[in-house]
Every structure is written in structure tokens, then in C-alpha cells.
């Protein structure tokens, strides 16, 4: 076998941390990782947040993000140990031999410069191509990546193209200087499922056609299975398992990998709908100062103790529906019945009883809790506010609630900043439960969480539903989540409900075009899934 393009030996990475009430000190975030990559191959790095996958990816460029230091080991690129050279050598390497695709193209492009100027910048400044050659090359890449109007798209500014297109422009940017290695850092994570699939297909094709090697970093095993030749599973800066993609997906050896592969395998018996607790009738809504409706004639029912999942991509109006039901956005037309009475359209005029019975859990648990309040205050306030509980009685109930969300009462005096992402979301659930609601609106509650943690939260929500008989309006873009917890489903597209019914009805054929697209876009942990889908689907995503 020829010499590998990239060879990493015993890579150790440290970082400086500045905790608010202790002295700054150094911690180790990667504890000696080995891997190699042959020319033209793709290695997937996978792990949850904090696994060190991005940090390892960036080390291939000899770069450590703010405070991160490459403390030991070797990184060989094209037969040179890049950690030995100085900044001059690194500068020759970056943007020429090794390039980088960032997670958020929208945040990584300079909004004040045209796309073409940014795409050819590295090639020209590295002296690889003349400006004219580089532009010609970029146009070819735009075409190959399936961007519309490849001859002219370069003269647009970043805000003039969609998110999915911008992510492909960034891939063109990385491929333009004809590098030997591209580092993809979660390139599709910020995109809708239906857009993700196009970008994924474009990236895969571009990698194949140009023969470039790639490091593909993601937390989604199903995505990485589509593009990689090998996969390395990371956990807390340690390698867990490293092998060909086929073996990792179909025959994982380690417990942790098995857990990742089998994630979202919750089985949920569908219940039949009964007399609804909440029914939204013909809701039409628009935001103040705009001229178009974001919701058109939306009607849904939720049965007591059951889950209605509202699915759709961003901009489909699913969160707006939640705002209308909670009264934060009074609708233009239509009404909402809740527990046998009609809710007033605007929140301030609702009775305390209405407010109590309708609770909400947010996507970002970080910002849904006041950072200056302890867990005890956060959970205790609804008790005090709705039930006038005080002192010992309140403290006992808080402890009970903490028990219910599978956290001990040792957390009662902690601040949100001292909790992990999953714990924060659990506290938010406890806060909603404290009000003894009949319906909880869950707005993308698991999408900011790592897959294993998200699984835990879903299981908890299902358990609580059984015990407390609470109904959920579950807003999500993730169909795997829907399969796991829903009793009925409403599919939304551009402000309309395009498909609505019980889970088995909605998820069984015949499908309308949009539902088909949505269902087929969810990455499956199967090899060759991507090619299959691209070949068979009926409709292009709205992102195009």
C-alpha cells in the first residue's frame, strides 16, 4: 500500500479553560488518537458534542481554535509532519493542500463580498491558478455541485442564495484550489432534512469526481454512513471504534457504537383519537407589519393524553402555530377550543387556569431558564404561582418533580450553567409539569441535543405521558422522533397542513409528493441509501 496522504499518530490536544470561580487551567481534550487516510478515501469522524471530533479535524490543518493547543503527537500530510514546521509552512498548507468546510456557511462567508471573490481567493493567493483559471474552475464546480445558473451565481452576495446553496458554494470554495484533503465539519447539520440530502449528494459526487480525500465530521451516524469509506467513533477525546463503514454499521463491536447505531428504536403503541382536549379551527395568521399569511386555514385536534406531532421544514409555520395556540400571536382568523372552552386569542386576557393547563417547553433549554435562578426557584415558581405552595410543602414537591425527571434533589440549589444539556432540558420539563398541565407544547425539544441524550428525553416524555396523562403538541422536523412518539401527525408545508391523521395513516402510502419527499429524506443507517433515494424521489426540495 502506498504512503497514506494523512497519517495521525498519538495526537494529543489540550485546551485552556477559564471557569468563573477557579484559576484558569489546562485540560486534555484529545488523549492520543491514531488514524490514516489514503488518497481519494473518506474517513468519517463521529461522536457527540465534546467528543473532540472538530478539534481533531482542524488538527489536519495544524490549527487549534481559541485556546486549543496541539500538545503532542504527529500529523503527517503528504509525507511532512506539519506540527514541526512553523506558521509559514502551515500557511502554504492551508487553503492549498488542505481545505475546510465549516458547519454554518451563512456565518462563514463574508456578507460584504461576492461569492466568486471568496471562492477563488485561496487559489489565487496561494499562486495555484490565475484569477481567470480559478473562476473557470469555480464555475465548473458550481455546475457539478448542482447550483442553479453556475455561470452567474458567483456574482451574487451570500445573502442572495439559500442556505443549502451557500453550503454547496462553500464546498466549491474548498475544492477550488484542488486540495489533496478536505475537512468537512458538520456541513449539513444546520440544514433541513430535505435540503441536507441534496447537499449530501452533491458533496459525495464532488468527492468522487475530483478524487480528493476527505475527513467528514458529524454527529449523525446515518449521514456519515452514506459518504464515508471508514468511520472512527470518538467519545470524550478517546477513540472507541475504528473500522470500515460496513463493519461499524452492520457489526459494531463496542457498546457505545451499538447504542449509537440503535438510537431512536423506541417503540410506541399508537392510541386511537378520542374527544379532543384542544382543537384549533381554521387558524390563519400573519406577523405584524407583513403582507402575507404564515398560516393558512390550519385545523388540528389533540386528544387527551396523546401526542400530535407537527412536522415540517423550517419556515413551514409549525412554530407559528404554537405561538397562536399560546396566544403570543393572536390569529387573523379561526379559534382555539381547549378543555371545553374557547381560548381568548391574546395571552394577557387568558385566565390563570387556562395558562396553567397549557405549558410550553423550548428548543434551547439554555435560554429557556433564567441563568440567575437556581433549579429550585425555576421549578418552584409555578408551584408558588399557581398553587400558592410555600416552604416545606414546596420543597417536597420540587424534590418529587426532580425525582420524576430522574434527577435527584441534590440539584435543587444548582444554577443552570452547572447542568449538562440533557439535564437542562429535564429541568424545563419539570417546570412545565409543576403546573399540572393538560397539554404541553414541545417546540423542537430534542433537536439541540446529542442523539443518545435526545433518546433519554423522549423516553422520559413518554413515561410522563403515561403517568400524568398529559397531551403533547410535539413540533419537530425530525421524522425519526415522530415515529418514536406520535399518536397522530400533521405534516405542514408553507403554512398549510398537507397531510393529517393518525400515525399509521400518515406514514402509510399512498403519499402526497411532499410527504414522500420528507419521509425519503430522513437518512437511514443503510449503505447505498442516498443513491436509492436520489434515483427514486418525486419532488425537489424547496431549498432549491
Amino acid at each position, binding site marked *: 500500500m502506498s504512503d497514506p496522504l494523512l497519517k495521525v499518530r498519538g495526537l494529543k490536544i489540550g485546551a485552556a479553560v477559564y471557569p468563573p470561580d477557579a484559576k484558569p487551567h489546562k485540560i486534555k481534550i484529545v488523549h492520543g488518537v491514531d488514524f490514516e487516510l489514503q488518497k481519494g478515501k473518506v474517513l468519517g469522524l463521529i461522536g457527540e458534542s465534546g467528543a473532540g471530533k472538530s478539534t481533531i479535524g482542524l488538527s489536519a490543518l495544524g490549527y487549534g481554535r481559541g485556546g486549543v493547543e496541539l500538545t503532542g503527537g504527529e500529523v503527517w500530510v503528504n509525507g511532512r509532519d506539519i506540527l514541526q514546521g512553523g506558521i509559514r509552512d502551515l500557511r502554504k498548507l492551508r487553503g492549498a493542500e488542505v481545505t475546510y468546510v465549516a458547519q454554518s456557511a451563512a456565518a462563514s462567508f463574508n456578507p460584504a463580498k461576492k461569492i466568486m471573490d471568496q471562492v477563488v481567493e485561496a487559489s489565487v493567493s496561494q499562486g495555484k491558478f490565475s484569477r481567470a483559471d480559478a473562476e473557470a474552475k469555480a464555475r465548473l464546480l458550481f455546475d457539478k455541485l448542482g447550483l442553479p445558473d453556475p455561470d452567474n451565481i458567483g456574482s451574487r452576495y451570500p445573502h442572495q442564495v439559500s442556505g443549502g446553496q451557500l453550503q454547496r458554494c462553500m464546498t466549491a470554495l474548498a475544492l477550488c484550489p484542488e486540495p489533496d484533503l478536505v475537512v468537512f465539519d458538520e456541513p449539513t447539520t444546520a440544514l433541513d432534512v430535505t435540503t441536507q440530502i441534496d447537499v449530501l449528494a452533491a458533496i459525495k459526487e464532488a468527492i468522487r469526481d475530483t478524487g480528493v480525500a476527505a475527513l467528514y465530521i458529524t454527529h449523525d451516524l446515518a449521514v456519515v454512513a452514506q459518504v464515508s469509506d471508514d468511520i472512527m467513533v470518538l467519545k470524550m477525546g478517546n477513540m472507541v471504534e475504528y473500522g470500515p463503514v460496513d463493519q461499524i454499521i452492520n457489526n459494531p463491536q463496542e457498546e457505545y457504537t451499538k447504542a449509537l447505531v440503535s438510537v431512536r428504536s423506541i417503540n410506541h403503541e399508537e392510541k386511537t383519537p378520542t374527544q379532543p382536549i384542544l382543537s384549533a379551527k381554521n387558524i390563519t395568521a400573519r406577523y405584524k407589519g407583513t403582507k402575507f399569511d404564515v398560516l393558512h386555514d390550519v385545523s388540528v385536534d389533540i386528544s387527551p393524553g396523546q401526542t400530535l406531532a407537527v412536522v415540517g421544514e423550517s419556515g413551514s409555520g409549525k412554530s407559528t402555530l404554537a405561538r397562536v395556540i399560546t396566544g403570543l400571536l393572536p390569529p387573523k382568523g379561526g379559534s382555539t377550543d381547549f378543555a371545553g372552552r374557547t381560548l381568548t386569542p391574546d395571552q394577557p386576557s*387568558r385566565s390563570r387556569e387556562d*395558562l396553567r393547563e397549557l405549558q410550553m417547553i423550548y428548543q434551547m433549554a439554555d435560554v429557556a431558564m*433564567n*441563568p440567575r435562578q437556581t433549579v429550585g426557584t425555576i421549578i418552584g415558581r409555578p408551584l408558588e404561582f399557581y398553587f400558592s405552595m410555600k416552604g416545606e410543602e414546596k420543597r417536597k414537591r420540587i424534590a418529587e418533580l426532580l425525582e420524576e425527571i430522574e434527577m435527584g434533589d441534590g440539584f435543587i440549589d444548582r444554577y443552570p450553567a452547572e447542568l449538562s444539556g440533557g439535564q437542562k432540558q429535564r429541568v424545563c420539563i419539570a417546570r412545565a409539569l409543576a403546573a399540572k398541565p393538560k397539554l404541553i407544547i414541545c417546540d423542537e425539544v430534542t433537536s439541540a441535543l446529542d442523539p443518545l441524550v435526545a433518546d433519554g428525553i423522549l423516553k422520559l416524555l413518554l413515561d410522563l405521558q403515561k403517568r400524568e396523562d398529559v397531551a403533547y403538541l410535539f413540533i419537530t422536523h425530525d421524522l425519526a422522533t415522530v415515529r418514536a412518539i406520535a399518536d397522530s401527525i400533521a405534516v405542514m408545508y408553507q403554512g398549510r397542513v398537507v397531510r393529517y391523521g393518525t400515525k399509521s395513516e400518515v406514514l402509510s402510502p399512498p403519499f402526497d409528493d411532499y410527504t414522500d419527499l420528507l419521509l425519503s429524506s430522513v437518512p437511514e443507517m443503510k449503505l447505498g441509501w442516498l443513491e436509492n433515494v436520489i434515483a427514486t424521489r418525486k419532488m425537489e426540495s424547496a431549498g432549491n
Partner: protein
Amino acid sequence: MFKNIPISALIGLFFTGLYFFIAIFAPWLAPYGMAEAVGDVWEPASSKHWLGTDSIGRDLLSRMIYGGRTTIFIATAATILSFTLGSCLGLLAAVMGGWVDQAISRFVDLIMSIPSLIFALVVLSVMPVTIPVLIVVMGLLDSTRVYRLSRAVAVDINVMDYVEAATLRGEGKSWIIFREILPNALSPLVAEMGLRFIFAVLFVSTLSFLGLGVQPPGADWGGIVKENKDGIVYGIPAALVPAFAIATLAISVNLVADWVLNRTTSLKGGRG
């Protein structure tokens, strides 16, 4: 929390504390009375008069100590007034929005469009110049700046999900302002308070220097500069002493304010 104070903040804290200590215990610390003529005109520093004497033979150290007391008292009172008023109105405007916000903000814009020194000079030339009037005028004028800051900070916090969660729970405005927003806005406000205090010291000194601040025979640092400014021509440094005091106080309070600001911005988990 005092374990990790950087050395610059420690120095700042020490000198700020020292100035406030001297201001509070002035009558026990000053060697002579404030308005007592105890020596010749502009005597040089000696063991009897550590900083020499002033333009009419009063002990300069005693004048400085009593003057510091007046200056710091007026500045502190004016800062407290401006902060209470400015931040309450700012938070209220941010939470209420709509016409309340518009009315207060445009009124504040109106006041701010007039340079505050000129505004103060006009008001003080028609009002009797007493210490309470000085405090109220300075406090009111400064509260417009505090209003701007607190409104800007609160508008950012007001769109956080936890404020929405409180609204959905049915909480009243006072809970949202004082329990949800204020604790999170406090750190930038406290840091700003340090800076504003120094502006107040400079402001009252300026007014006294121009003759519209503390009236003789009362002493304050601006007034001492004014009384001794003619001495500079003859090489007598008496006017520089209060200038030095103002400068060191300004620097030490700023060192503390810097530290408070740093603590806030490094508390990433704190403000999300």
C-alpha cells in the same frame, strides 16, 4: 469570590476604599478646620502643613480632605439617583414597548440633544445653588445616559425564552422586570455605575470650577483648583493637588469597573 481578583483591580479597590474612608471620617482625620486660616498665603509643604497652605492661608490638606468628602458625597448621591431613575425607566420601557417606550425614549433624546454641562449651567444660574439642587440636577441629567444603557440591555434580555416562559405563566410586569430581567442586567449596569460615578466627580468639579457648584467657604476639589489657579503662574503647585486626587480616584474606580465588566463577559454560562 475575592480569591481571583487581578492585581490591577486590587489596587483600584484599595485606593477607592481609601478615598471613601477619608471622605467618611473627614472631621477626625483633618488636622485643621476646613475654613480656618492657620498660616501664611501659599506656604510650601512643611511638617505643620503637609501640603502647604492655600490662597488665603488655610491648610491645604484639611481643605482636600473636607473637599473630597463633599465631592464624593455629591457624586455618589447623584449616581445613585441617576441609576435608580434611569434603570427603572429603561427596564420599564423595554418591557412595555409600544407608546410608553416611544414617549420616554423621545423625551430622553430631547434632553440628550442639549449638552449636559450647558443645560446644568442654565438650570443652576436660575436655581439657588445648594447641595440638594446640585445632586438632583446632576442625577436627572445623568439618568438619560443610564436609561439608554439599561433599555438596550433589557431589550436584549426581554426576547429570551425564559422571559417568554414567565409571560406565558402569567407573571406580572414587576416580576418580569425585577426577577427575570434585572438580575441579568445588573452586571453591565454596575460596571457602568463605576464609570458614571467618575463622570459625576468630574462634572461637579467642573461646575465648582466655573463657580456654579459648591459655594465658598465650602470646599470641594473643583473649587480648590479654582481658588489656587492663580498660584500656578508663580510656580505654586497647590492647584495641582486636587487635580491629582481627581485623576487617581478616576483611575482606581475605573480599574474596579473594568474588573466587574470582565467578570460579566467571562461568565458565559451566566448570560447564555
